[in-house]
């Protein structure tokens, strides 16, 4: 009996040693993984300021922010009307146009298709804009409307609106 107890104690000691070793080795793995997360300088990457002054009604510009394109479109009255009057029931990812803009004249979107990350067409005058007149992703055929909302195709959600604010009437800072 005493012998058995002794043996148990020994097993416990050895097992806890191995467990300690495993925990030690395991925690060494974390820094190896974590180093691949964005570094402090990447996280602090400068925000981008965009002057909207030269952007006339109906025109669009693309700026780079955090390595990705940001679409800025100065929408026409018709485009704003069409985006606003859309019945939310028709939308795959229902969102009011008002909730997606700060100033209804300007729509600011991250130009990355929410399906698999391609850059949709529709910024240049000659581009295919898709069935809803906004943007069209050529990779797998996602159609976005004037508010950047997904209307048709495989993309699950609307184009992302980045964090931005108006510094003055015609100057925005993204990020």
């Amino acid at each position: 009996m005493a012998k058995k107890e002794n043996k148990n104690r020994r097993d416990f000691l050895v097992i806890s040693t191995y467990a300690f070793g495993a925990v030690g080795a395991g925690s060494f793995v974390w820094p190896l993984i974590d180093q691949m997360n964005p570094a402090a300088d990447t996280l602090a990457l400068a925000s981008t300021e965009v002057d909207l002054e030269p952007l006339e009604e109906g025109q669009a510009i693309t700026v780079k922010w955090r390595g990705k394109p940001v679409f800025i479109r100065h929408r026409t009255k018709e485009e704003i009307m069409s985006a606003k009057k859309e019945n939310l029931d028709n939308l795959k990812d229902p969102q009011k146009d008002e909730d997606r803009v700060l100033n209804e004249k300007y729509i600011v979107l991250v130009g990355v298709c929410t399906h698999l990350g391609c850059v949709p067409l529709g910024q240049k005058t000659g581009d295919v804009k898709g069935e809803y007149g906004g943007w069209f992703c050529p990779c797998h055929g996602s159609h976005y409307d004037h508010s950047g909302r997904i209307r048709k195709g495989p993309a699950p959600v609307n184009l992302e609106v980045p964090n931005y604010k108006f510094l003055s009437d015609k100057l925005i800072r993204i990020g």
Partner: protein
Amino acid sequence: MCKNITFKIYFFVIFLCLGKTCLAASTDIEYPSQDWSFSGIFGTFDKASAQRGFQVYREVCSGCHGMKLLSYRHLSGLGYNNEELKALSAQFEITDGPNDDGESFVRPGRPSDTFVSPYPNEQAARAANGGAYPPDLSLIVKARADGANYLHALLSGYKEAPKDFNVPEGMYYNTYYPGKLIGMPQPIYEDGVEYADGTKASELQMSKDVTTFLAWASEPEMENRKRLGVTVISFLIVFSILAYFSMKQIWAPIKKKV
């Protein structure tokens, strides 16, 4: 067996010390040792002192010395919060560009900007300083043997040159600089800055503060490193003890036979 381990550690320590003496032996000048807040295994940076030191750097050193490895956001390590950093960095003028017209422009700084350099390049720096190049201070404490004590000694080492010692034009006599002639005029004078926190800006105080700041700039990870080190080493000591007794247990039958 215990003796064996002690011997091993002893051997190792001797080995290291010997190596270090050889390497350290290359410097001839001894610097007076100061009582730094950041020395020792549990040492941390005196944040208030380092903040004052940053003020000294800004108002005195930064005229000639850049710190290009630091960004304003790094100063959060000295205890500044985000709003303070934004306000602080906005006081600096950053040359950015090119803009849409292809030209450089000046804008207020942001926390993500690196410290503004006083000169656009090394040639400009040399031209403005009579051929001497004011070194970048980002790593100065790590880049000199016994860095903190050296800096402190250097900053307070400006003395009247002995009569028979010829000090050429544009050079200054400093007891702690190798060769005793340095191209940098004495940078720190009493009340050279007016400390925001009301501390009396004596020469000694300023020199200590700026050294603390530069020590932090060289090793901003130091506090994390030491803190993590205490945890890791405590863990490993417990692990070693467990492993030792496990080994004794497992080996007991073998040892008995012998």
